[in-house]
């Protein structure tokens, strides 16, 4: 970082616009700014800090005032309107490229309010985004903590020799300049990333759920086993009960128990069968028996009678026609007598006479003994058929009657076999109670089996649930694994970072020890006073070791020596930090003797940094020292205070360098 230009406008004692060119050249890093006490050297230092850090700047004149009050009162009293401005222009390397920043901080008072404006120009262009976030942005360029090491007041620098004060300065310098804060921030960022991975809990929930399901399944299994045992024992119990029942039932049957229990049934069947038999018998007695059936006994007689009746009827018919025939024959013959020859006639006559004779003989042979009335003939003729029908009907009824009779006798036998109540009662009771046992056992067994079914179904459901949970978990697990990997790697990296940080710190501290010691010995007159110097890596306390290898209390050093120690510390820090920052020293030689002043002028200022702003009185850098410093100087300025107007202006040149008008 290189300061290019500082401009003050109505800031403090500076009235109007005062500008200082601060550019340096190789080999000429020093910018010497002279000014008597009260001329505004410190104000100039404040202006740079104010421009860069605003409200956070540790300006010397602020005290306990609020920022607004400070701003209000730092406007030059003669300024009108009440408007002030500080501008700092510097170049620095950002992202590998040299950039020029111009920070313009201005403020004005209107009535009671103070309005502040900040504009940042990068390479000549106003960057509103950077302007807006400048307070953060500047921390990356030049941390506020570090700034106090490089913008310092020589009069106060001595306090750095105090171990406690030195410790805080070293600590902040180490943190901000040596990149350790970056390491720390990286570790914190990783921690934040880690904390965002809040998965393990979810997976644990899923696992818990799965465990829960598994426990339930185990419970189910236990329950199932218990039920199975009970089923087995109850099944064998049922078998025993069934066997006992069968035995008792058998005994019961043997004793006629069946018949006993069926008695009512048997009796009712018997009475029913008896009444059916009775009605069949009634039909037989009143209808069948009264009919023609007895005639069936007389089949041969009947057929003889029928033949006789036929014959008698035949004869009777013949006797009826015989007279008619003889009358007709005589008529026929008398008719034929004229027509036929006598021989033929005789033949016909003979024939007819024979026929009549035949008929007569039939009549004579068949006496009318039966004289069967003709009106009953049809009855006789159809008798066979009627008898056949009656016989069929009768045999059907008889068969039924027989069946009923047989059934009846069976029932009677059974009823006769029905045992006495007293005999059977005990068996009956026993059998009933045994049957109750069997029924109860069967029911209980049925219930158990239902329970078993329910348990099995529940188990299947649980297994399904568990599968689902497993699948759900697997899906989550993928995410979890990612997260876990991130956490694990973050942990690793954080560990590495810590080690790296420690190593870096150790390395920087070592370098710092060397650099500070070297600087101190370089600047000290009594170079053997401090033999060694140690910095604690945890507390950052500075320990000096004297020539006798004992710790050297800094309070034993003189004020001048302490100032030199402080300078050495700052120089060492600047060297280790890589000379990246300008060094601004106010009142650089305050309490030093001439020998030490020469040391600083000869050895320190030209090499303190690539840009060294010295704010000096004519007593500090006098004509002699100026001549020694001369070859390293890039610019000289003198701050001139007008006691009448109470305003300061900047002039080029130093007291003894040419062209400068002194007002002293």
């Amino acid at each position, binding site marked *: 970082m290189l300061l290019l230009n500082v401009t003050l406008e109505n800031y403090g004692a500076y009235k109007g616009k005062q500008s200082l060119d601060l550019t340096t050249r190789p080999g000429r890093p020093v910018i010497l700014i002279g000014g008597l006490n009260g001329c505004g050297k410190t104000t100039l230092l404040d202006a740079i800090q104010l421009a860069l850090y605003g409200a956070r700047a540790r300006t010397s004149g602020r005290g306990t005032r609020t920022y607004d009050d400070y701003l209000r009162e730092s406007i030059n009293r003669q300024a009108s309107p009440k408007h002030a401005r500080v501008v700092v222009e510097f170049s620095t390397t950002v992202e590998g490229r040299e950039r020029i920043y111009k920070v313009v901080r201005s403020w004005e008072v209107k009535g009671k309010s103070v309005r502040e404006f900040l504009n940042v120009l990068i390479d000549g262009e106003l960057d509103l985004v950077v302007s807006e976030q400048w307070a953060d942005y500047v921390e990356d360029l030049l941390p506020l903590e570090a700034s106090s090491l490089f913008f310092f007041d020589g009069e106060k620098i001595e306090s750095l020799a105090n171990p406690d004060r030195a410790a805080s300065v070293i600590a902040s310098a180490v943190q901000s300049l040596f990149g350790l804060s970056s390491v720390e921030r990286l570790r914190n960022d990783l921690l934040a990333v880690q904390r965002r991975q809040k998965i393990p809990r979810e997976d644990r929930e899923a696992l818990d759920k799965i465990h829960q399901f598994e426990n339930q399944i185990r419970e189910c299994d236990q329950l199932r086993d218990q039920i199975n045992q009970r089923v087995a024992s109850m099944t064998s119990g049922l078998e025993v009960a069934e066997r006992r029942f069968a035995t008792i039932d058998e005994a019961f049957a043997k004793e006629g128990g069946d018949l006993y229990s069926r008695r009512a049934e048997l009796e009712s069947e018997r009475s029913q069968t008896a009444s059916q038999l009775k009605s*069949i018998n009634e039909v037989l007695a009143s209808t069948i028996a009264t009919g023609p059936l007895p005639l069936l*006994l007389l089949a041969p007689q009947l057929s003889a009678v029928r033949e006789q009746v036929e014959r008698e009827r035949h004869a009777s018919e013949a006797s009826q026609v015989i007279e008619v025939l003889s009358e007709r024959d005589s008529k026929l013959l008398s008719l034929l007598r004229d027509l036929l020859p006598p021989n033929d006639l005789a033949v016909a006559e003979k024939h007819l006479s024979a026929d009549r004779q035949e008929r007569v003989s039939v009549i004579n042979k068949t006496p009318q003994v039966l004289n069967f009335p003709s009106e009953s003939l049809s*009855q006789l003729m159809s008798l066979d058929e009627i008898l056949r029908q009656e016989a069929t009907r009768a045999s059907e009824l*008889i068969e039924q009657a027989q069946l009923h009779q047989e059934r009846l006798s069976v029932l009677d036998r059974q009823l006769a076999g029905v045992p006495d109540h007293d005999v059977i009662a005990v068996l009956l009771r026993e059998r009933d109670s045994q049957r109750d046992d069997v029924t109860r056992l069967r029911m209980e067994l049925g219930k158990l089996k239902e329970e078993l079914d329910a348990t099995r179904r529940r188990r299947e459901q649980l297994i399904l649930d568990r599968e689902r949970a497993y699948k759900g978990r697997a899906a989550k697990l993928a995410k979890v694994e990612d997260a876990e990997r991130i956490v694990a790697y973050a942990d690793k990296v954080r560990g590495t970072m810590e080690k790296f940080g420690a190593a870096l710190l150790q390395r920087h501290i070592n370098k710092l020890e060397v650099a500070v010691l070297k600087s101190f010995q370089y600047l000290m007159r009594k170079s053997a006073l401090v033999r060694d110097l140690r910095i604690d890596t945890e507390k950052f306390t500075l320990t000096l070791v004297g020539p006798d290898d004992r710790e050297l209390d800094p309070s034993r050093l003189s004020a001048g020596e302490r100032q030199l120690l402080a300078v050495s510390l700052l120089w060492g820090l600047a060297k280790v930090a890589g000379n990246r920052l300008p060094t601004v020293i106010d009142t650089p030689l305050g309490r030093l003797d001439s020998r030490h002043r020469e040391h600083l002028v000869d050895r320190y200022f030209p090499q303190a940094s690539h840009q060294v702003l010295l704010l000096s009185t004519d007593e500090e850098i006098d004509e002699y020292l100026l001549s020694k410093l001369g070859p390293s100087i890039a610019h000289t300025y003198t701050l001139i205070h007008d006691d009448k107007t109470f305003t300061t202006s900047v002039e080029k040149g130093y007291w003894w360098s040419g062209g400068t008008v002194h007002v002293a």
Partner: protein
Amino acid sequence: MSLDNVRLSQPAKDQLIRLKRITGIKNWNTLCRWALALSLRDPSPPLVRDINTDSSVEMTWKTFAGSYGDIYLALLKHQCLADGREPTEENLSHILTVHVHRGIGHLAGRRDLKSVADLISLAAL
């Protein structure tokens, strides 16, 4: 005696009373017809010739023979002729009486006759 009145002996009546009870048949004439048929079936002549028809049981031929009267009469005549006698009314009445009584005796003597079915079975089976 005439065919118009059929009369039974006292022993026959007693037997018939028993048969009525066994068979459940209510009318004398029905049982008498069965007795006649049963006896007529036996070609041998009845041994008993003289029967004292002294009971109170008496019925007309019409009552006795029922709707098949002509056939029964023809059968009686046939039996009469077969016996080698003139089928006079007297002869017919005699045959009827002896055969009915023999039949009744026959029925009454059958130990296996226990119901009307047994009776009918004699003819139908």
